[in-house]
C-alpha cells in the first residue's frame, strides 16, 4: 500500500484500519473537500465505524489528513484528540444535552468553537435550520425532527471544517424525515465545508449526495461522483428495486395549465410535476431503472410524457429473467438505466451501440 502523504491537499485523505472481534475495517480513501459525500452500505458495512475513526471517537491504525491538517499519523505518532479536531458531528439519535435548553445547547458549541464566530453567525444558523421558535425549549419537549435540526445547528456553531453526519434521519419516521430533508438540502447549497454523510437509504443518498463511497464488509467497493456510481452495472447499487440514476438538470419551462415543469439536461428534457422553482434553477431528477422501458421506434400516441432517444452502452444480466441496460441519453453524456426482461432483450436484439427510445414512466424530483 503506498503511503498517502499529500497533507497539503484540499480534501480528506485517509488510510485507516481497525479490527474488532469478528469485524475488520480497512479503508483507503481520498474524498473531495467540498459537497456531500455519502458513505453508503448495508448495516455492518463499517460506515459508522469509519465515521467514528475520522472523528477520533475511536482509535484505529493509520493516517488521516483533513484539508491539509494532520489528525492522525501513526508513523509520526500523531493522534489529535476529538475535542481538538475542528469537526461537527451529528449523531443518529437525539444527542442534545437534556439539562440544557436549545439555546444553551447552541451556546455550548459556540463557546468552544474552533474558529472565529464571524464565520458562522448564530442567527444565520438558526435561520438556516428554522429553529428560532425552539430556542427557549428543553430538548425533552421537542419532536424528533426538531431535535435533529437543533443538533445540526449546534454542530455548525462549533465552526467545523468538516461536518460528519451519522444517519441523521434514520431514527425518524417518514413524516419527520420529510421535515428535515429540505434543511439538509439547504445545508448542501449554503455550506462551503465538506460533509460526510452516513446512510443506508439509497433514496436519501440520491437526493443529497454529490459523491458516493460504497462500503461493503469493511472495505471500499467503489468511490466517485454519485451519478457515475449510480449508473454502473457492476456495483451492488444496480441490484435492488432502488437501482436508478440521478440527472442534474435545469428548470426550463413551466406549463401552468397542466401543472408540469420541463427540466432540460444536455440536448434532452423531462416533464415532471410542477416545481416551485424559478426558470434556470438547478434540479436533480431521479429515474429508477424499473420505471424505464425500451422501444426500437418512437411510440405512437401514448400517455407516456417522457420519451428519450438514447444509445445503449452496456447490458448485464440481473437475476434469471431480468437485464439491466445502461444508456446515454441524446448526444450527451447523461446516463440512464433501464431494467427489461431477457426475453425483451432477445426479441428487440438489444446490444451495445444500438439507439433506442427510452420510455420513462416516472421521475422523482429532488431540490
Amino acid at each position, binding site marked *: 500500500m503506498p503511503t498517502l502523504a499529500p497533507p497539503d491537499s484540499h480534501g480528506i485523505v485517509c488510510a485507516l484500519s481497525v479490527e474488532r472481534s469478528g469485524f475488520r475495517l480497512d479503508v483507503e480513501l481520498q474524498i473531495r473537500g467540498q459537497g456531500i459525500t455519502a458513505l453508503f452500505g448495508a448495516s455492518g458495512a463499517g460506515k459508522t465505524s469509519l465515521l467514528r475513526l475520522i472523528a477520533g471517537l475511536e482509535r484505529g491504525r493509520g493516517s488521516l489528513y483533513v484539508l491539509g491538517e494532520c489528525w492522525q499519523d501513526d508513523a509520526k505518532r500523531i493522534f489529535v484528540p476529538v*475535542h481538538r479536531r475542528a469537526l461537527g458531528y451529528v449523531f443518529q439519535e437525539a444527542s442534545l444535552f437534556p439539562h440544557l435548553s436549545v439555546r444553551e445547547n447552541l451556546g455550548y*458549541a459556540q463557546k468552544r468553537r*474552533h474558529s472565529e464566530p464571524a464565520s458562522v453567525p448564530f442567527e444565520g444558523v438558526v435561520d438556516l435550520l428554522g429553529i428560532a421558535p425552539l430556542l427557549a425549549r*428543553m430538548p425533552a419537549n421537542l419532536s424528533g425532527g426538531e431535535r435533529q435540526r437543533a443538533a445540526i445547528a449546534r454542530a455548525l456553531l462549533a465552526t467545523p471544517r468538516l461536518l460528519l453526519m451519522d444517519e441523521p434521519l434514520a431514527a425518524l419516521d417518514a413524516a419527520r424525515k420529510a421535515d428535515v430533508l429540505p434543511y439538509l438540502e439547504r445545508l448542501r447549497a449554503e455550506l462551503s465545508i465538506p460533509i460526510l454523510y452516513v446512510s443506508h437509504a439509497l433514496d436519501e443518498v440520491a437526493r443529497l449526495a454529490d459523491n458516493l463511497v460504497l462500503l461493503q464488509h469493511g472495505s471500499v467497493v467503489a468511490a466517485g461522483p454519485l451519478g457515475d456510481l449510480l449508473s454502473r452495472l457492476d456495483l451492488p447499487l444496480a441490484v435492488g428495486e432502488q437501482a436508478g440514476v440521478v440527472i442534474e438538470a435545469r428548470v426550463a419551462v413551466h406549463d401552468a395549465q397542466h401543472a408540469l415543469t420541463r427540466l432540460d439536461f444536455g440536448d434532452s428534457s423531462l416533464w415532471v410535476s410542477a416545481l416551485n422553482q424559478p426558470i434556470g434553477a438547478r434540479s436533480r431528477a431521479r429515474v429508477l431503472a424499473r420505471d424505464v422501458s425500451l422501444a426500437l421506434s418512437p411510440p405512437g400516441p401514448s400517455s407516456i410524457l417522457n420519451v428519450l432517444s438514447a444509445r445503449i452502452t452496456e447490458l448485464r444480466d440481473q437475476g434469471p429473467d431480468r437485464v439491466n441496460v445502461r444508456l446515454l441519453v441524446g448526444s450527451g453524456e447523461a446516463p440512464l438505466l433501464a431494467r427489461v426482461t431477457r426475453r425483451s432483450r432477445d426479441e428487440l436484439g438489444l446490444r451495445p451501440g444500438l439507439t433506442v427510445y427510452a420510455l420513462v414512466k416516472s421521475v422523482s424530483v429532488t431540490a
Partner: protein
Amino acid sequence: MLSAADASAVRLTLELASLTTALLLLLGTPIAWWLARTTSRWKGPIAAGVALPLVLPPTVLGFYLLLLCGPNGAIGRLSAALGLGTLPFTFGGLVVGSTLYSLPFVVQPLQNSFEAIGARPLEVAATLGAGPWDRFFTVAVPLARKGFITAAILGFAHTVGEFGVVLMIGGGIPNKTRVLSVAIYEHVEALEYSDAQFLAAGLVAFSFLVLLALYSLRADSRPS
C-alpha cells in the same frame, strides 16, 4: 433538656458528618467515575473493596484502623514520623474512620448515575470541543446531579448514625470524640434513660426527615 456535654456531642456529630461528607464526595467522585467507565480487570476487586464496609461489622473496621494507625501500626509510625501524631482517640481519627466506613454509600449512587449517563453525551461534548475536565464538569456532573444529592445525604446521615467505628477509634472522649451515638450509649450504661431518650428520639426524627427528603427527591427525579 440538653446538657452542655450533650450539646457538645451534637455539635461534634454535625462537624464530623459535614467534614466527612465533604471528604467522601472528594474521594468518592473519582472512584465512582473510574468504576463507571473503566474496563480494567481491577474494576471487580476495587468495587468489592469499596463495598466491604457494607457487610463488615463496624467493629472490625475500627479494630484494624486502630491497629494500623496506632503507635505500632504502619500508618501510625508514618504519621508520627511526619510529626502528625497518631490518629486513634482524636477527631481526625473519627473523620478517617467514618470516611472509610461510609464510602460505599457515596460511591454507589454516584457510580450508578455516572453509568446511567452513558458514553454518548460525553462523546457529543468532545465533538463540540470540550476537553476531558470540561466534559466532566459541564456534562457528567450536571447529568449526575441527583446522584450527588443522594450520595451527600446518605453519606451525611450514615455518618451521624455511626457507632461501632467511632467507638473503637474515638473512644468517647468528651468534646473531642464523644459523638451522639456514643453519648446515647453512655447514658444508657449510666441508666440515664431520659437523657438517652431525648437524644435517641432526636436521631429517629432526624433520620426519618433525611429519608423522607431522599425519597421525595427520587419521586420527582424522572427526567423533565
